[in-house]
Each structure stands twice: as structure tokens, then as C-alpha cells.
């Protein structure tokens, strides 16, 4: 009897298990996620279909043709004549420059394009390179497959490449032909027409040259080369996000540009005098014990170098590498911009006036001086136009401060600005410290840190300290709203990296190093922290400083904003800059 019971029980149990297992297996095997992932990676607007627009068809044919060439590179032929062609020829003859033209393993040709060829400016030339005047040209090449930029400097007289570097995950300024292509794709997209309510033939898009990103597309974190021709409509702006690697529209986003009027604009035009006097030529300042060189770079703003105080060298250089402007952390779209020289730059925000030196007055006394450079896009303060200021302050007591501000107005009232500073101190016996509960804590490895509400400061408000040698140290006081310049605080990421003398990690002019819209520490400088962070004790260091400012268009708290207002029968411009940047205070 027991056997029967056991038998029937075991039979039922095994049947029960078999069915349950089969059911579970059935459920597991139905998981569709992988298919969705691939579909999404293809882009959000629609599934890829055959291109019918002639400009895309032509572009694709051109790519196919170039891939069959011995060097799969589209040459830059848009302007510059013979010199430009010769510079490319020299660069492309060098095996280091062409290292990534083909897949390193399969040797399959990869799609490359030279985006620009410019006369090399002082900021492009590495130490030790000598040449005849006007002999050096800078060649910028983009590798679409690897999202990699190669920058080479060639000597036209010696007919050779004198320096070259490859920068992964970076993108150079795009050439006019690509700006035109992006605008054509946007203007002819039915989605854009539907969103605007009309086909934007006449209405010219703006910001078409500025790189962008969009989450859940191939543009995410700038993995593809993407730009956003933008159409301003009333109080809104429509962003048409165009993937120039795949030559298609991948998304549309609206931003609210605020209700403030902008009926007049400054209409600052690019000017050759600024280019000739401050981009081609290094200028110097000797004032109140301070000595330095300064130069307007192509895309790293106003750079100061060889800075000394009372004959003691303090800084190798300081500059503003990028401006990351995010309008949505969750969608990850905005602009990854850079500021610099007019004329040669494709950037939309450029220097239109020369740098200015002014005295700093406190009470009745002159306590130092300031070096300032402003950058404008042409129709500022209209919506989707930008203005930035870079200010260096030098005090008679040896303090100095490195700052910048967005002066509005930008393309939305929910924006976050993240400027990227690179500050290289002088000397090769430097050490870096952070103020902690137990006192000054030595950073012995490359690292990064965010200034937060819980951050500790010493009794004077200093967060960090850098010693240049045994006798000279500087305290670092981040912005917390204490500098009386309207700044509300830096909320900054700080990165400490080792300065390599044998490889370029930003000493020369850098292309855009980070995507627009990362909300975490991945703003670009982290690329220079090795997988195994390097030793940072008693060595040559670089500080990267990335403050974060949120714009505001609310009455009473306007910040990183600009507007026009009516007074005595005319319209005037009012700006609300958001200054950020640390003060460096010598330790007595």
C-alpha cells in the first residue's frame, strides 16, 4: 500500500516539476530585450529606410568611393588653396598620422575625413619645435569609426610632420560642408516640418556647428558625431539632432527659452584684428610684480602661460578647454562647445573684441588687475545665442583667481553649464592636499572629487592646497558665493592628473574633450586619469576644474541669463552672469 502511495506521489511530483520547468523555460526563452536594444541603437525617429534625399545619397556614394581609395580619407578642400592641400599631403604621408585609417586587426578601411587645416598658432606648437615663420600648419582629421581625432602639425618647408597626437572620444570643429549637410538633413526632415508646423525653408537654423548628444541614440555621450541645428519659435527652440556619422536625423527635442524679451542684439561681428593681434601673436603683461604671456587659442579660450609673481614661476598655463551646456540630464542633450579665436574657428561663440586689462579697485586702493576676454555669438542675447566671459584676477599680495561666466542667454531656461578649466602649475616637485576631518590629507594618486554641501573647508574656507616646492604653497578656495561677483557657488568637480612631458594631455590646443550632458564626473578630464591612477607625490601636476551652474530666468533670481528691457524709449540689454572659479591664496 505504501508503495502505491509513494508511486502515485512521485509520479505526480515529477509531472508537476516537469510542467513547472517547461513553463519556466518557456517564459525565459521569450525574453525580447536584445532585439529592442538593437532597434534602439539604430536611432529613435524611425527604422532605417532607404535614403531618398539627393544630398544623403551623394554623401553615401562619396563615402563608398573614398573607402575604395588607397587612403580612405576625405580631403579638406573648402578653402586655403595649395598650402592646405600640401599640408594634408604631408600629414597623410606619415605612418603615425595615418595609424588608424584602417582597422588595426582586419585592415579594413575606416571612414576618415579631414575637417580643417589651419595655420598653426602658438598654442598648437609643442615645446622644442622650431620653424620658419608661416611654415607650420595644423591638420585635424576625424575617424568616424573609432570616434577619434588625429591632430598633426606639419612643416611645409621641411615637408614633414613635426608632431601628431591621437585623441580617442574627441571631435574637432566640423567643416562648413558638414554644417550645410546637417542643416539640409534637418530642414528636409518631415519630423521637423511636423513639429514646427511648416517646412523651414527660409528660417535658418542656428547653432548647427555645435556638437551635441542624445541618450538612447548613437549620439549618446557623443559616440557619433552629432550636431543640433536649432529652430527658435516664439519662446521655444526645436532641436533637430542630426547624426553625421549615419547622416540622419535621430531625434527632436523642444526647450523653453524663457519669456524675457530679446528685441535687440549686440550683433558683434568676427574681426580680423582680433585674430591677427591675439591669436597669431603671444602678448605679454608685466604689472605689479606679475609677469605672463597670454594668447587667444583656437578653441581653449584665453590662455595664460609662464605666469610668475616677484620672479617666482607659478603657473605653466591656464585655459578654458570646453563649455558643456546640458538641457536635459535624462535625455542627455545640449551643446558641447568651445570658445576661441574668430575667423578660423567654426565655433558659434567666438572672441569679437580684444582681451582687456583693467585694475581691481577695493575701496580707494588698486589691489591688483584683471585680464578679461569676452566671447559672443552673433545674435546675443537672443534665444539660442551665447556669451561667455573669462577673467583672470591677479592681486598685489600674490593671490590670483581663475574664473569664467556664462552671460546667458542660451537655448533653454533649464540649462546647466559646465566649463572645463585646465590649470598647470610650475615645478616638478608638486604635492596636492584636500582638507579633511583629520586635517590636510595628501593625494598620492590621480583622483577626482566633487564639491558638495557636505564638503569640509578649513577655518579660512579653503578646500585644497597645492605645494609647488618646499617653500611655496597655494590654498585653493572654491566659489561658495563669497566673491561678490554674483556667483552662487562652484559645485565643482576637481581632477588631479600627472603632467606628462613626453605626451600631450592638453598642453596644446584641445578639441572638444567631453560630451555635453553627463551629469557625473565624466566631463572629459577623467580620460587623463589612468586605469591604474598614477603617483602624484613630488611630481608635475595638472588640475582640471569643472564648476556647474544652473541657469535661471525667474524674476529675482536670474542667473546665467540675459534679456532686453525698455528704458527711455529704447531697448537695452541686461545680463546676469554666473561667475565661477577658485581663488589661489599663497600660504604665508
Amino acid at each position, binding site marked *: 500500500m505504501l508503495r502505491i502511495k509513494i508511486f502515485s506521489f512521485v509520479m505526480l511530483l515529477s509531472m508537476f516539476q516537469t510542467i513547472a520547468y517547461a513553463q519556466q523555460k518557456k517564459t525565459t526563452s521569450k525574453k525580447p530585450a536584445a532585439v529592442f536594444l538593437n532597434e534602439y541603437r539604430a536611432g529613435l525617429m524611425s527604422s532605417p529606410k532607404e535614403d531618398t534625399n539627393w544630398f544623403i545619397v551623394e554623401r553615401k556614394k562619396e563615402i563608398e568611393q573614398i573607402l575604395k581609395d588607397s587612403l580612405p580619407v576625405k580631403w579638406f578642400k573648402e578653402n586655403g588653396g595649395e598650402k592646405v592641400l600640401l599640408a594634408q599631403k604631408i600629414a597623410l604621408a606619415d605612418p603615425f598620422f595615418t595609424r588608424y585609417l584602417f582597422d588595426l586587426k582586419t585592415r579594413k578601411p575606416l571612414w576618415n575625413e579631414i575637417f580643417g587645416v589651419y595655420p598653426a598658432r602658438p598654442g598648437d606648437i609643442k615645446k622644442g619645435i622650431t620653424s620658419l615663420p608661416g611654415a607650420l600648419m595644423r591638420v585635424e582629421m576625424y575617424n568616424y569609426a573609432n570616434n577619434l581625432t588625429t591632430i598633426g602639425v606639419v612643416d611645409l618647408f621641411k615637408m614633414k610632420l613635426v608632431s601628431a597626437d591621437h585623441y580617442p572620444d574627441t571631435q574637432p570643429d566640423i567643416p562648413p560642408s558638414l554644417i550645410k549637410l546637417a542643416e539640409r538633413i534637418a530642414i528636409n526632415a518631415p519630423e521637423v516640418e*511636423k*513639429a514646427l508646423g511648416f517646412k523651414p525653408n527660409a528660417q535658418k537654423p542656428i547653432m548647427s556647428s555645435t556638437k551635441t548628444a542624445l541618450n538612447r541614440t548613437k549620439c549618446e555621450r557623443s559616440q557619433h558625431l552629432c550636431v543640433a541645428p536649432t529652430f527658435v519659435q516664439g519662446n521655444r527652440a526645436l532641436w533637430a539632432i542630426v547624426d553625421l556619422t549615419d547622416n540622419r536625423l535621430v531625434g527632436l527635442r523642444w526647450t523653453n527659452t524663457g519669456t524675457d524679451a530679446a528685441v535687440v542684439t549686440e550683433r558683434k561681428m568676427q574681426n580680423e584684428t582680433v585674430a591677427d593681434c591675439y591669436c597669431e601673436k603671444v602678448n605679454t603683461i608685466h604689472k605689479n610684480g606679475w609677469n605672463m604671456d597670454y594668447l587667444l587659442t583656437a578653441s581653449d579660450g584665453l590662455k595664460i602661460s609662464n605666469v610668475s609673481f616677484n620672479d617666482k614661476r607659478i603657473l605653466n598655463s591656464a585655459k578654458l578647454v570646453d563649455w558643456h551646456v546640458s538641457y536635459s540630464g535624462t535625455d542627455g542633450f545640449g551643446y558641447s562647445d568651445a570658445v576661441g579665436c574668430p575667423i578660423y574657428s567654426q565655433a558659434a561663440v567666438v572672441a569679437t573684441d580684444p582681451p582687456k586689462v583693467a585694475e581691481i579697485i577695493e575701496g580707494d586702493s588698486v589691489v591688483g588687475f584683471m585680464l578679461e576676454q569676452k566671447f559672443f555669438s552673433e545674435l546675443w542675447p537672443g534665444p539660442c545665442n551665447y556669451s561667455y566671459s573669462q577673467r583672470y584676477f591677479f592681486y598685489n599680495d600674490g593671490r590670483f583667481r581663475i574664473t569664467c561666466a556664462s552671460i546667458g542667454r542660451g537655448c533653454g531656461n533649464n540649462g546647466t553649464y559646465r566649463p572645463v578649466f585646465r590649470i598647470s602649475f610650475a615645478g616638478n616637485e608638486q604635492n596636492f592636499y584636500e582638507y579633511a576631518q583629520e586635517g590636510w590629507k595628501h593625494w598620492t594618486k590621480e583622483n577626482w572629487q566633487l564639491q558638495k554641501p557636505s564638503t569640509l573647508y578649513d577655518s579660512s574656507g579653503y578646500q585644497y592646497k597645492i605645494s609647488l616646492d618646499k617653500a611655496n604653497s597655494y590654498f585653493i578656495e572654491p566659489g561658495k558665493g563669497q566673491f561678490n561677483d554674483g556667483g552662487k557657488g562652484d559645485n565643482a568637480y576637481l581632477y588631479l592628473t600627472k603632467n606628462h612631458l613626453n605626451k600631450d594631455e592638453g598642453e596644446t590646443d584641445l578639441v572638444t574633450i567631453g560630451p555635453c550632458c553627463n551629469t557625473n564626473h565624466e566631463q572629459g578630464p577623467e580620460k587623463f586619469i589612468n586605469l591604474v591612477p598614477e603617483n602624484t607625490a613630488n611630481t608635475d601636476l595638472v588640475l582640471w576644474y569643472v564648476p556647474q551652474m544652473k541657469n535661471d530666468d525667474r524674476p529675482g533670481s536670474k542667473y546665467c541669463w540675459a534679456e532686453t528691457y525698455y528704458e527711455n524709449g529704447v531697448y537695452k540689454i541686461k545680463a546676469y552672469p554666473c561667475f565661477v572659479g577658485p581663488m589661489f591664496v599663497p600660504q604665508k
Partner: protein
Amino acid sequence: MQQKQKVIGLIIATVCLGFFHIYTESNARQNIIKAKVNLGRHLFYDTKLSYNLTKSCVSCHDPKMAFTDGYRTSSGADGYNVKHNALSLINVKYRTQYTWANPAVTSLQMQIQFPFFNEHPTELGWKGQEQLILNRFEVDDKYQQLFKIAFPGQNKPINTTNIQQAIIAFEEQLVAYNAPYDQYLKGNQKAMNEQAIAGMKLFSSNKLSCIKCHSWEQPFKKYEANFSAGIRIPSLRNVMITAPYMHDGSLENITDVIQYYGKKQSINLTNTEQQALIAFFNALTDTSYLSNKELLNPFQYQ
């Protein structure tokens, strides 16, 4: 004797079959719930959900910020900003009120109508566009499959009600009740450091009396928020990652909030006290849900 054995065997078999039936029923129900959550997860992260393909739930409720979005007020599909700051969706299953200023909204089913159908401003923009949006899912093979599994036996499972139900099912999975403070309350004395404990004491002290309004949200229990002057007093769980603050997002960081209330109540807090409060607020953070990929973007994490 043999007949008796047969009867007993039959009874045992019947009982076992009964158990088997209950098991398979409950298993099937569980699978349907899982399928609904999975569908809801896809919808939550998909811009197909907005009429012009620009927004999804995640646009305003980002996992990295405890399902808020970091903006004063979120922007809708047409670029216009909504009136209030995005509320966190963490532990939404245990809430009893769901909006900043309307205590009458007492279920997720009621709440979800706002982002779907609000017009001034538009959020997802469903009003007048329902069929257009539903068509997108109808022509999508993968969504057809997801809806079929989540709503078995229905002839036309792709409809507004089912979409909302699936999203709600997903939102109900967003639970995080293991902050250091929870652990401390459970007896783990090491879960909070001295500074955070000092902050906790200060928070409940007569000097500040924060606790009077911000009652602690007990794990897995219904939480009824207080309202003051018609505005909800939010739970402080994950407060350090949900800036900016207040119903209109007017205060950018936690220091501003502390100073605002200090001024309002005429309380002078020393720097040490402020830091202690911040340390306590940090102890209210639980981001363990970020390691559960089933709650994250299905188009990035499988």
C-alpha cells in the same frame, strides 16, 4: 483492502492535483505580473509614449536622481515647463497621496492621468493623440508580443488602460527601504557615524522639530504625507539626491533649504550643526535599486 488502497491513492492523487493546480495558477499569475512589469518598464523608458516622440516617464523621473530630474520644474513634450518640481517615484507603492498640491489624488491610477492628458502645459500629450500613439505600439512586433504576454486572453491588449496599468505595475517595483538610517533603526549601530547621529538628534530636537512635519516613512507601510498651506510635505528619503527643493524647485541645494528654514523659524544653526544635519540626510539615501538592472533602462540593460 485493495479497494481501500485504491481510494486512498485516488484521494492523495486528487489532493496533489489540487495543489498542482493552485501552484500553476499562482505561477501563471506571477508570470503575468512579471510580464506586466516588464512591459511597464519598456513603456516607462520609451519616448514612443509621448505624442511627438520627445518624452517618456524617465524624462522627468531619472533613476540616478531617485526618479526625479534635477530641474526646478520639468519640461513637457512641447518644451513648456510644468508647474511643480518632479516628485520621487521611490516607494510610490506605499504612498497615499500623489501630487504636490492635490490631496484628493489618492491612487496612482488617478495620478497617471495628469502626465498623459494634461494640456496646459502638455506633458506626454495624449489628449487628441491617443490613436496616433497606440498605433505606434500596434505596428511594433515586439510591443505586440509584450502586450500579449502581459494581458493574455484580451483581443485588443494595446489600449490606454493597459498601458497605464503596466506603467503602474513597474512603478510599484521602485522600492528602497535600506538606507543607513533604516539599518540603524534595526539595531545596526555602525550604520551611521557620530556626525549623522548628532544630526538625527538635532532633527528631532525641540530646537528644530523637523520631525513634526517630516515624519519618518516606515518601510513597507502606507505613508500619509502632511500638507501645509495646501502643499505636500515630502518624505525625506533620498533627499540628498533629489535637488532642487520645494514644490517649485526654488531652492537649489540642501544648504539653501536649511538656511531658508533657519531664517523662517529664527533659528541660528552653527556650521557644525548644519554639517551634522547634512550627514543625517546622507544617511537617508538608499540607491540599492540602481544595482537592479530590471528597474533600469531596458534599451541599455538587458
